Structure formats: structure tokens, C-alpha cells
């Protein structure tokens, strides 16, 4: 492949090939200071290719190819090449990851224990994790939490945080400009900007943590917290896991183990500061 980049992110290594240099240049800047995979062995391969051969030059159009593909995915403009690379990596994890149980959740760590936040898209789990990552917590991941099938510990997976629309401004006030990727407008999900996790997250990308609290954040109402039944948590986590079914009995054991050992709460919050306070309060009760 004409242009290539390999990245180690927690326990997972990707190689991304591209017909154009621009997306990989942007990716390399975003992931500055991330290590290259040891032994050059990559779990997954992503390829950014022209949808048709002539679309490499004429109205360049990026199709996301790789080990796992979505058959009818629409190609993207070259200007969104960085986003295509990120979506490509997400796709490989969602469809191909079989070493760990994937939870659709963000996670942060303190004192060797992990807080897991899960819920629907837009509920704020990425933004909350990003904020906590700047307030003394170590960011482990914003999109996927990786549950080890043998130990029940969580692995870090600190990808660049994908901030959408309103969350962009929030984080621009919290993190230095150098850590941000380009502002990508008019994507299918609105405006997107990527944020590189801080040094603590990168340096700690091989340190696991014991899950200690599961939260279901929901933006929009006054601060409130209520307990959530274990059966409900179990169901929500399986529904939002892309690989639970493929892992069979090992997935069942790991997830029931998590649910039985980890307290959970649903929280409502009107703004991010309220959320942080609520999270810290619940954390000191649980941990």
C-alpha cells in the first residue's frame, strides 16, 4: 500500500494503509507519542481506498476497506479521511475483536479501579470520560471498554476521543490546542473533532484496572441517581456489546462476573460540572 501507518492502542495494534497521504498524516499527528506495534504484528488492517480507481484523483472518494467491512457503507470525502480511518478502526473492533469482551462504554481509572460509563450514543459518556481524564483520572477509553475474559479486569483502549457538536467547545476549554485534530464539519453526525488523550493515558495504556462502578449517564435532567438492577445491567451490556454472542460461555462468565461484583447506578445530569460532582460522590461510596 502506498502509504502506511501502524498504531498500538492498549493491547490492540492496527495498521492503516491509504491511497492518499493526507489521512495518515492527520492520523500520525493525532496519535503523536503513541508507540508502534511491537514485532510489527497487527491485530487488524484498515485500508482507505478509492471507491472506483478514478476516484483517487477525481472528486476523491474514500471507501473504508479492511479485514472487516460494512457491505453498503457510503464512501467519504477525502477531507474526512481522518474520520474514515477512525471509523475503520472502530469497525474492525466491532466486527473482529475476539480476544476481549467489548462493552460499548467509556472508562476511566483511579487507584487501580475503573469507572465504566455506558448508555446510548449522545448520552455523554465520551465527554464525561474526557473531562474526568483532565481532572485527575486516567482515561482508559471513550468508545470501547475491553473486559479480560480470564481475569475480569478492564484493559485500556485509549483511542483519540471523538467529540461531537457541543462537546467540542466543552473540551476546547479543557485541553491544549495541540492535542486536537482538525475540525471536521458536515459529517453524517454533524461536526466532529478528535482529541488525543493526555500523557497519563498514553503512558498507562498497558495498565489494567479492576471495574468498581458502572454508571448509566443521561443528560438533560436535574442531578439524580438511582440504583439499577443486575438483570437490567446485564441486558443493557449484552445489547450494546458487538461481540458478546461470538464469545459464547467465556463471554457469559465474564459478564455475569462483572455484573455480580460491580455496583451500578443510573444518573441524570443537567450539565457537565454537575455530572462530575455526582460521579465523584458515587465513586467515593463505591470504591
Amino acid at each position, binding site marked *: *500500500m502506498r502509504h502506511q501507518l501502524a498504531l498500538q492502542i492498549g*493491547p490492540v*495494534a492496527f*495498521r492503516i*494503509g491509504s491511497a492518499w497521504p493526507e489521512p495518515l498524516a492527520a492520523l500520525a499527528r493525532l496519535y503523536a507519542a503513541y508507540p508502534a*506495534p*511491537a*514485532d*510489527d*504484528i*497487527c*491485530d487488524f*488492517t484498515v*485500508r482507505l481506498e478509492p471507491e472506483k480507481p478514478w476516484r483517487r484523483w477525481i472528486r476523491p472518494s474514500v471507501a473504508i*476497506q*479492511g*479485514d*472487516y467491512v460494512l457491505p453498503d457503507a457510503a464512501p467519504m470525502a477525502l477531507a474526512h479521511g481522518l474520520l474514515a480511518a477512525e471509523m475503520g478502526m472502530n469497525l474492525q473492533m466491532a466486527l*473482529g*475483536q*475476539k*480476544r476481549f469482551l467489548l462493552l460499548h462504554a467509556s472508562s476511566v481509572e483511579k487507584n487501580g479501579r475503573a469507572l465504566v460509563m455506558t448508555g446510548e450514543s449522545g448520552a455523554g459518556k465520551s465527554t464525561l470520560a474526557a473531562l474526568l481524564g483532565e481532572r485527575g483520572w486516567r482515561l482508559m477509553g471513550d468508545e470501547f471498554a475491553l473486559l479480560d475474559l480470564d481475569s475480569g479486569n478492564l484493559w485500556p483502549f485509549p483511542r483519540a476521543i471523538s467529540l461531537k457538536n457541543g462537546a467540542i467547545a466543552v473540551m476546547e476549554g479543557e485541553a491544549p490546542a495541540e492535542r486536537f485534530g482538525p475540525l471536521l464539519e458536515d459529517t453524517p453526525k454533524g461536526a466532529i473533532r478528535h482529541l488525543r488523550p493526555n500523557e497519563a493515558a498514553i503512558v498507562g495504556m498497558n495498565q489494567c484496572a479492576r471495574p468498581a462502578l458502572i454508571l448509566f449517564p443521561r443528560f438533560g435532567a436535574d442531578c439524580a441517581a438511582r440504583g439499577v438492577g443486575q438483570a437490567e445491567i446485564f441486558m443493557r451490556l449484552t445489547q450494546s456489546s458487538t461481540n458478546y*454472542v*461470538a*464469545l*459464547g460461555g*467465556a463471554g457469559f462468565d465474564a459478564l455475569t462476573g462483572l455484573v455480580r461484583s460491580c455496583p451500578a447506578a443510573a444518573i441524570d445530569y443537567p450539565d457537565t460540572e454537575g455530572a462530575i460532582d455526582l460521579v465523584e460522590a458515587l465513586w467515593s461510596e463505591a470504591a
Partner: protein
Amino acid sequence: MKEGWLNRDAPPSQRGKPGPVRAGARQLVDALRDPENFQTSDWSGLITAARAEQLLGSLAFRLEGRPVPERAASILAGARREAAQQRTQALWEAEMARRACEGLSVPLILLKGTAFHAAGLDAAVGRSVGDLDLLVPRARIEEVEAALIDAGWERIKPADGYDDLYYRRWMHELPPLVHRDRDRMADVHHTILPPTARPTPDAAALIADSIAIDSGVAILSSPDMIVHAAAHLFADGDLAGGLRNLWDIDRLLRQFGAEPGFWQVLATRARLHQLTAPVALALRLSARLFATPVDAGIAGRARPSDRLFEARLLARDNWGRPTRPLLRFAFYLRSHWLRMPPLMLARHLLVKARR
């Protein structure tokens, strides 16, 4: 029949010497054929090619216990776990189909990967399975479909004019069914090649010689299994995913080849099903790529076109990309030509083009 064994030496491999890395699919073939002596400096390429060819599970079992770098070992261990779950799911689909058809007294003959798993064959090791493929007598196929629909399977598309007619008259299988709860597909066949294809396998003979493995469930006889695999690979389709099918054939031939009288019966059955040439080609290519011991008499002499088939099967690079576009297009054309006499093909393409 001439006795003899054809055992082609493996193409030059990197035995003990690091050197230029062989391209994706070639490297994959090396690793499958000879895991003891396999070495590479491009594990990413090997894993990518294996994923692309649906052979990661098979590769993972071939390399189990071999000294490999830690990350590769972790990836392969995950693949073995996934393969075990795929096996479970495949066998479960067969069991649920069996329960659905219990009252009908129609033997459900399992085909392909599900059959390998159900019979515990070597070909089952690491074998991924997508759909449930069944063979039933043509006269009973509507009853079987009705029983499956009763038990929760559904037609993917509602019965529609031309497509439905196309399937029921010209194809060898029903339109595919999918189970509404488990989201798994079932393909019910009444023979192993489209009726419009030139060779006409003897479906009744396939069924008559089938081997019961459970109440209401059977598999093809060993020689018929080879004939089916060869037909599926070389007499139907454009060889997409063909490397996995050829690996199946290697595993099956090695296991069955040891049975006394097997080769004799294989030749007889191939003739009966009018599939002598595809079976011979399967033997030659399996020997060529995987060093399978085969009967030289049945395999016949190498043909110039063997190299084209080999190239098509190996058209995958170290980044998982399909290569040889012109060759692949040629096989695509061939696949249409195989299925239909020219006039019928023209009419079919015209109807499709008008859509």
C-alpha cells in the same frame, strides 16, 4: 485403473531461512500445508490474508502449540475460541432444523461445514460456518420449507415474480430462509448443482447413499462429499472463497483416502454424477497447493488451465486485497456460463438489466 500417488512437492518455502515474504494467500497456504516448518516476518500479512479467506480459525488450529510471537499467539487463541462458538452455533441450527422437521420423516442431509462438524471430521477443525445447508428430496422440499417456516424461519424477501420463479425452476435450492430470532440463514437444496448446469448430478443417488448420524439427520457418503466439494468449487461459482473450499478438500481427502477402496468408489461416483473433470481438477489443485496425496489416475495429467485456477485461488495480497482483476473477471464470466445455456443466460441478463 492406474495405481499411483501424486504428491507434488510444496513450492519453495522459507524453510528455516528468512527471505522475501511470499504474498498473502501463498504465505497462508504455506502455513496451512506445513506449519512445522513455517516461518514468516510478516505475521500481519498472514493474519490479514487468513481473515480475508475465512481461514483464520483453521490456521489457528494448525499453528496451535507452535512457537509463535506473543501477539500472534493471542490473536490465534481468540480465533480458536471463536471457531468453537461457530461450531456450536452451526450444530444448533442443524438441531433446530431437525426438531422442526421431526414429524415429516424426511431425512435432512447436512452439507458443507455443518456436515463436517456434525460428523467430527478433520475438515471441521477451525472451520467457520455461516449458513445451514440442507439437501432434501425434491418432492418433499415444499413440506420442509413449510415446517421450517412454522418453526420461526422466514423468507428474506417476499415471494416475488421473477426472482421466485428463477429460484424454484432454475436453481437447485429454495430462496434463502433466515430465522427470525437467531438471525441465521438456511439454504434448502434438492440437488447440488443448478438444473441448468451441464453436469447433472444424481440427487437420488446422493440421498440413497447418505449416512444417518442422528435421527432425521444425515451426511453425504465420503466419496459424495468430495464430489460435492469439487462441484461447489469448480462447477458452480467464480472461485470466490475458493481457497477455503480447497482446504476442505485437502482435509477430506487425507481423512478418507486412508479408507480401503475409497479412490475406486470416488472415481465411480464422480462418473455417476458427471463430475469427473471437476473432481480430477480438485485432486490436482489440492496436491499442487497442499501436497495432498491423491490417486494419480483419477487426478489425471496437469492441464495448462490448472495454473489459472491456482492463480485465481491465490489472488490475495498481504494487505488482504484481491489481486488479478482480469483473471477474476474471467472467472466471473465463467460462473455465469456454467450455470446456464447461452440463450437462457441472455434472457436472464436482459430481465435483470431491465430492473
